[in-house]
């Protein structure tokens, strides 16, 4: 079953067409990497799928529910309900710098059992009172992943997950993604890092 089904979608910024008649399907439990040179709309596609940008034409279904049909969006309450199935790990994480590690999670969902469990599992428990400025790049990424998991999404999107990491940490993120996938999370990754794609067992969607 397709958990993401985008049919004939088009997106323009003014007169500049980013993509047109694009079809993008992801099956439940898959790991999909979206690759291609910069400027081809990888990030824009991802932003459309998580509701940060609106498409101009086409249809998007998420987990069988229609988000937008032939360019017309459902009402905002429904949108928000449908989009609660997706989590997002931004390229530069977009953590809240004025909140501690723990507060970054509490503000999304104040389930302290879950927070403690995840912090322990991802090795951040002893850093729970630190501010994002004081933790390492790898720790920030793990925090961003936990934060994306707080709303119990079915799909987690990653935008260029290796861009802010050095090579040693690349193995770690591959391991994390595989772990998440094993837990039935569907993963969509936008990247232009070929070596990273090679390390992953994923379905490649090329936007060249």
């Amino acid at each position, binding site marked *: 079953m397709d958990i993401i089904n985008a049919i004939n979608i088009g997106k323009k910024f003014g007169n500049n067409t980013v993509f047109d008649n694009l079809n993008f399907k992801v099956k439940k439990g898959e790991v999909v990497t979206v690759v291609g040179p910069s400027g081809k709309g990888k990030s824009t596609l991802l932003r459309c799928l*998580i*509701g*940060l940008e609106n498409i101009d034409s086409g249809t998007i279904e998420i987990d069988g529910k229609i988000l937008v049909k032939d360019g017309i969006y459902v009402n905002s309450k429904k949108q928000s309900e449908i989009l*609660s199935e997706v989590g997002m790990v*931004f390229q530069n994480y977009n*953590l809240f710098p*004025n909140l501690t590690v723990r507060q970054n999670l509490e503000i*999304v969902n104040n389930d302290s059992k879950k927070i403690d469990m995840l912090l322990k599992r991802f090795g951040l428990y002893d850093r729970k009172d630190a501010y*994002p400025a004081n933790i390492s790049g790898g720790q920030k990424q793990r925090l961003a992943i936990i934060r994306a998991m707080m*709303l119990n999404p079915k799909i987690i999107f990653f935008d260029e997950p290796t861009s802010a990491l050095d090579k040693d940490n690349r193995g770690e993120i591959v391991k994390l993604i595989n772990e998440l996938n094993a837990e039935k999370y569907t993963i969509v990754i936008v990247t232009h890092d070929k070596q990273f794609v090679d390390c992953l067992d994923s379905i490649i969607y090329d936007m060249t």
Partner: protein
Amino acid sequence: MKSKIFVFLTVFVLCFNFLFSGLCSAENDEFVIGVDVNVPPMGFLGENGDVVGLDIDLAREVCKVMGKKLKVQPIDWDAKELELNTNKIDAIWNGMSYTPERDQNMLLTSAYMQNRQVLVVKKDANISNLDDLKQKNICGQKGSTGITSLKNSAVGKNAKTITELDNMVDCLNEVRLGKSEATVVDEVVVRYYFTKNSLQNDFKILDQELETEDYVIAVRKDNLELKNKIEKALKVVVEDGRAGEISKKWVGSNVITFSAIKEKESAMDNKNVNVFSELFQGLLVTLKLFAICWVMSIPLGLILCFLRRVRLKFVKIIIDVYIWIMRGTPLLLQIFFLFYGLPLMFPNLQMNDRFLVGVIAFVLNYVAYFAEIFRGGIKNVDKGQFESIKVLKIPKIKAMFRIIIPQMLRVCLPSICNESVALVKDTALIFSVGVIELLTTAKNLVNTNADILAYIIAAGIYLLICSLVNLIFKIWENKLKFE
């Protein structure tokens, strides 16, 4: 490049020259008198913007006799002693009445005219002296010398009613319409008014006065030579009839005489004014004003800043115009407008609490500045933060208070600190609606004691408050480092 430097240097030299010539303007053949330009008919702004009046004409004739050139310098009446004692002016000549206090601080000439508080009745009224006013209705201008002396006099005590009106013209109309039989007025002013409007045949002035003030001219305490010169010249002008003509021109009759001051009992009981306790009272007003304005403007500025982001175009336009006006006009003008202007436009909006008017004016002004500061701050918050908030579906209000505002504040604090320090100093402007705060207290003390100690202490207090504000903001900034 060279030519630019040349232009710059030329401008610089010109500016310097200008400054320097300004400093050295007190030429020897000039006689500079200080006048408050709001005292018709003695000295006031004429139709073409020059200072004109009875005193000015008289001073000009006296100057001719002394062989000097008259220069009229508008001054702040409250600072007249200071103007004189710092050599900025040579004399105060502006319908100034004799008081024992003034006699102590300055050297006063003999009186050159008497101003009386007199009673005006209708020309055809059957009233010819003060005794005829028993059981009659009398009116007068609210808060004037005349109404005070009326209330203290036998005439006032025997009157049927005493009505207080806003101004002299209203009082005269009362009499004309027969609502009151008489009104108490300033003789010089009423004579000027009668002459200007040809009303001599409608009213008459009773001969007996309620009170008399002597008008004198003041020079510096040590300037006996000048005092003698002025008196000598005045005598000449009075005796050859020039003074009489001037008097007739302005008030229709000759009120200029020349007589020695009748010694009056000194009202001043030489009490030693305690500079510190007076300044402390002023300080309390300043602090209260600062605290109230600060606590109100910051949240309101924040609200305005967020309102401006609402997707309603007219809200944005209204706020932008408001900010534009508040930042583009002097705060002093805004205070005047609120206190004097609004009640004229909308009589229902009469606000008599001066402190409150000051608070409203300051808050309105500072809200605009703070809103602009916050606008800059919100622009500085990374776009990614808003995207995170959206994707994570954090409720808007919660996101605002927990994420956006703390990050904004971190960016804005130095600017907010700047504005707060400016507010500490701007509080002094409330003197313009008659609230006595720290600076005004200091100014009054300097004036009465002829000693600048109060200024130095006031400066020290302002420095201290501003340093404290700075310190508090430093601590706050450190707390918002998020490290």
